[in-house]
């Protein structure tokens, strides 16, 4: 009994000493999922499909919560802004009313499962795009005295309901584009002095009810109207402009796949390369098309002007101009001299 009292006393002392303590519990979760799914569902019909999920941890079983989360666009990029707060109102394009899927899934160590789910679109549902994300949340380990760090992959789910939808993309900007070092932002540019124009971009504002995936081409002509470059696919990554989003679409004038070495390992990266333009003025003609199945095809056409004037070219032009001025001056002077000479005679 005495020993028990001593033990309690020691434990109490420890508790007092470590009174401001915190822990981090790194929950070892590794999951593999489909990153995105695109489906077409006609009004009044339903589709059944499967979600792929894999527990990558070969030693530990896990229980995963499946949650439907709405999302919006995050600025001009393709990064989704997940509406994770439970109090956030449902988006008008949410899939929540239409989707049925299990709330939890149990996965053994290293196990892969295909989870059935279904989407039912009511008969009177209007045509357009409906989308949400499915978040795969591994259940945290038990214990209230820890900081849990976990990783939850999520999958984007886009459903197109065919028919006469409201489709309205408005072109806000089109031209040369220079990306900043953060690879996120950049600036539109029409005059290039120190470098060649390598990238074009356009901003499209989506005022309709369809997540639009525009396609088309860009033709670049020189000052004489001759085609110097043709970008056959103006949206090579098949990016989307979400509903209410002003989306930036970027495209290389000339693209190349380059091998890059990182940490001793080689990887291939697609990059924009120097298009090797001659100095001068160029016009880029953008032709874009969009429209879902059963809706009218819409077209956007625009032209941007790009000047490429490197310093050496400006220097040559200045020298030539100076020489011309000098020649004109000399000729004029000699003519004036001849006339005055004749008059004197």
């Amino acid at each position: 009994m005495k020993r028990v009292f001593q033990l309690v006393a020691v434990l109490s002392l420890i508790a007092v000493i470590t009174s401001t303590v915190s822990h981090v519990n790194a929950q070892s979760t590794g999951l593999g999922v489909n990153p995105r799914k695109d489906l077409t569902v006609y009004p009044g019909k339903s589709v059944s499909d499967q979600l792929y999920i894999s527990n990558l941890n070969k030693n530990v079983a896990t229980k995963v919560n499946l949650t439907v989360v709405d999302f919006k666009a995050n600025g001009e990029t393709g990064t989704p802004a997940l509406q994770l707060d439970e109090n956030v109102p449902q988006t008008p394009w949410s899939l929540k009313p239409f989707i049925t899927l299990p709330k939890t899934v149990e996965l053994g160590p290293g196990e892969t499962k295909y989870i059935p789910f279904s989407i039912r679109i009511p008969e009177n549902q209007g045509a357009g795009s409906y989308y949400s994300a499915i978040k795969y949340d591994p259940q945290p380990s038990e214990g209230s005295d820890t900081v849990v760090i976990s990783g939850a992959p999520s999958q984007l789910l886009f459903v197109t309901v065919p028919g006469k939808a409201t489709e309205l993309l408005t072109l806000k900007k089109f031209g040369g584009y220079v990306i900043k070092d953060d690879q996120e932002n950049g600036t539109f540019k029409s005059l290039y002095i120190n470098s060649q124009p390598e990238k074009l971009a356009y901003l499209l504002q989506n005022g309709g009810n369809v997540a639009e995936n525009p396609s088309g081409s860009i033709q670049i002509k020189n000052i004489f109207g001759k085609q110097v470059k043709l970008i056959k696919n103006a949206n090579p990554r098949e990016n989307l402009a979400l509903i209410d989003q002003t989306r930036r679409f970027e495209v290389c004038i000339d693209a190349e796949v380059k091998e890059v070495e990182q940490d001793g390992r080689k990887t291939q990266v697609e990059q924009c390369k120097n298009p090797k333009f001659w100095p001068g003025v160029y016009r880029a003609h953008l032709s874009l098309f969009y429209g879902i199945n059963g809706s009218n095809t819409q077209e956007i056409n625009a032209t941007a002007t790009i000047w490429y004037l490197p310093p050496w070219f400006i220097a040559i032009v200045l020298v030539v101009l100076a020489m011309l001025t000098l020649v004109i001056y000399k000729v004029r002077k000699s003519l004036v001299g001849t006339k005055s000479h004749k008059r004197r005679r």
Partner: protein
Amino acid sequence: MYRSVAPRFSLVVAILVLIGGIAWTVVRPAEAVRFQNRGMYINSARGGDTTYYIISLQYTTPAVVGSLRLEFCGNPIPYLDCDPPAGLDVSNGVLTAQSGETGFSIGQQTQNLIVLTRTPAMTGNAVASYRFDNMHNPNGSHQDFYVRMTSHSSTDGTGPIIDYGSVTATTTPEIELTTQVPPILIFCVAQKINDDDCTDLQGHYVNFGELSPNQTFYTSSEIQARTNAQYGYSIVVTGTTMTSGYKVIPAITTPTESFPGVGQFGLNLADNSSPDIGADPTGPGVNGNVVAPYDEPNKFLFRSGDVVATSDSVTRTRKYTASYIVNVPVGQPPGVYSTTITYVCTASF
């Protein structure tokens, strides 16, 4: 003499130019314009399906039209060569219904071309539509294809173009085929990640230890992602700051250095020297990058919902090190402080 002829000559030239201009304006060929309200409906958009198409359009120019040329291409632009979409076959297409401008029949047909012909007649304002049965979709689940349309006064789709325009369509599966190797997003978080495949994960407890106002306490965990999806991914941090019941260690909401003695909780994904913790991203997925301001060494913050890393295309394995710091002021109420930090990795679009 010379002075009296000059004005007359100028007048004659001016009159000739005027007459010439009027004549050119009247007799010059009308420029082709785009069809209005053009669209296409595919009854089953699945790649490789045989189905029916309804092509609709409104003739813009009131003119005598004898043929409508429909060319199916991989690109909508008229001045580009037409590459037939792989797998598409309209050579067995049958015109089963028509409205608006009617009287057409199929006059010419190949794998990617249909020419509708009729006795030349004047067009009206109505929206015309043409239904073609037995049309075979292009292969692939997300293949864009286009119909380049032109109207002509001739009956064989040749000669001057009256109206023109393209309609766009995409093969989209109603149901994905899960038997295919799908794009995968691999994502894991742990104290230590020992391989590219997220199968060897290590570490359950990382302890800040006993907190005191005299020094900064710090620790780290690892985040790893890769995807073969062309859109790339983004990683968002969510959660709350450290709390013990109602007692709170304030989160840093703008990038700030670590100050011992000031209540602070924050993180970043950078290689820090003060305190000496963290690392730059590693691994071959070089297009995976930490997003500002979480890439700034020695500056920490925590805002739930912030994007901390992104990639813009197919990305091989990339490992990020998240460093956490905590400082407490003198008089921080004792307790066991805890929080939940979840990293959510989502495909981009």
